[in-house]
Structures are given as structure tokens and as C-alpha cells.
């Protein structure tokens, strides 16, 4: 057991060099999501009652497919950053916290890749 204080351990090691990175990219993705989310919500509302063929045609329109991929990637990235903060705030115990953080990362990447693959499959078919 060390008799040094936590501050003594950390002193002299230098910073982790990413102090504000998480904060900053969460804001950048938030700003990007303002127009993307409004576009997505009102587009989907207009698709109410549309047939499979109509929705398929809509997604395969290049501008729609590209914007959908941007929305999915940005939303899942923003979500991953947000969930990370919630886990760090509320999950006590290093083992549980690490497990939750890993599961959250895997979940977000998997959902993003699956959703983007589906858009591309429709758009390129």
C-alpha cells in the first residue's frame, strides 16, 4: 500500500492531452444534429402511410441516402458520448463502469454500422 496521496500520484505526469476533446465533439455533433434531426423527423412524418415501394424509393434517392447516413452516424456518435458521461456519473465501481462503457461503445458502433449498411443496401440496389 502506498502512503502517497492521490494528488501525489498524479503530480508530474502531465495532462492526458484530451481535456476538452469530449466536451467539444459532443457540441460539434449536437450542432450538426439540429438540422439533421429536424429534417429526419419531418421527412418520416411525411412518409406516414407510405407503401414499401414509396419508402424504398425515398431512401434510394442519393441526397436522402447521404443525409440518412450522416444523421445515423452523427446521432449514434453523439449518443455514445452522452451515454459515456451518464455511465461515468452513475455507475460506481471500476469493474462495472468499465463493463458498461465497453458494452455502450459496442452497442453504438453495432447499431450505426447495421443501420448505415441497411441504407446503403437499399440505395445501391
Amino acid at each position, binding site marked *: 500500500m502506498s502512503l502517497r496521496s492521490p494528488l501525489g500520484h498524479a503530480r508530474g505526469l502531465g495532462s492526458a492531452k484530451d481535456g476538452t476533446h469530449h466536451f467539444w465533439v459532443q457540441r460539434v455533433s449536437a450542432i450538426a444534429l439540429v438540422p439533421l434531426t429536424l429534417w429526419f*423527423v419531418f421527412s418520416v412524418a411525411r412518409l406516414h402511410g407510405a407503401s414499401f415501394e414509396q419508402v424504398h424509393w425515398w431512401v434510394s434517392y442519393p441526397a436522402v441516402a447521404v443525409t440518412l447516413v450522416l444523421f445515423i452516424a452523427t446521432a449514434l456518435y453523439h449518443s455514445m458520448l452522452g451515454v459515456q458521461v451518464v455511465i461515468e456519473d452513475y455507475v460506481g465501481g471500476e469493474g462495472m463502469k468499465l463493463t458498461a462503457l465497453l458494452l455502450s461503445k459496442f452497442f453504438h458502433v453495432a447499431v450505426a454500422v447495421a443501420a448505415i449498411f441497411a441504407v446503403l443496401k437499399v440505395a445501391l440496389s
Partner: protein
Amino acid sequence: MSTPKPSSGPNRPLSPFMIGPYYKPQLTSMLSITHRVTGMALSFGTLLLAGWLIALSNGPDAYHAYSKHVMAWYGQILLLGWSWALLYHLCNGIRHLFWDVGKGFSLPAAYRSGYAVVAISGVLTVAVWALAYLT
């Protein structure tokens, strides 16, 4: 949460969690926790979006099986909650962005923007559903 305790290290006092016996519920703190709750809900809600696109990419049969559930009463209620959570998180997120650049920090301003978020997210949700059902 009960008496706040640090998970490790010396037993220093911590600021209590905003929900509990320590603070009176206020508009500002309620909107704050709602931002987090809607954020977490939306994280899981991405499964709904991914499921829709995957069903679409798997052909008409998969798409009809999926949309049957979405168009059922429970699917529509889920979608209503999903749309409101998304629009609330969007509006309150914009409020946070103004705070991030140092604007609107006074107590009256924080309350005004708080009521605006509640009203605008409600109006937008109604507008989206009106667009879906009335056009």
C-alpha cells in the same frame, strides 16, 4: 439516491444528487434530468430506427411485418414518446448550446428558456403528428 458517498478515497462531502430529499423540485432541475432521461431513451430508441431500415433493406415481407407493429396502437404510442423525446432533447440541447457560449445564465432567463423548451417541444411534436395524420 440516499446520502451521497464517494465511491473511493477519503470521505469528503459531495454535492447531493438533484432528486431526493436535499433539494426542492424546480423547473430547471426537472428539465435537466429530463434531458438525461430522454437522451438515454433515445440511445435505445436508435434500435427502432435501425430496425426500420433493416426491415426495409430485407424486402416487402420484412417491412410489412415491422410496420404492422409500428402502426399498431402500442407502436404509435412508442413512436409518439420517441418523437417527443427527440424534439425535447433537441430544444433543450439548443438551450444548453446557448449556455455553453455564456448566454442566458441569469435565473429569469433560465426559467424563460425552460418554459420555451417545454412549449416548443410540445408544439413541434403536435406539428409532426399533424403532418403525419392530416396530410
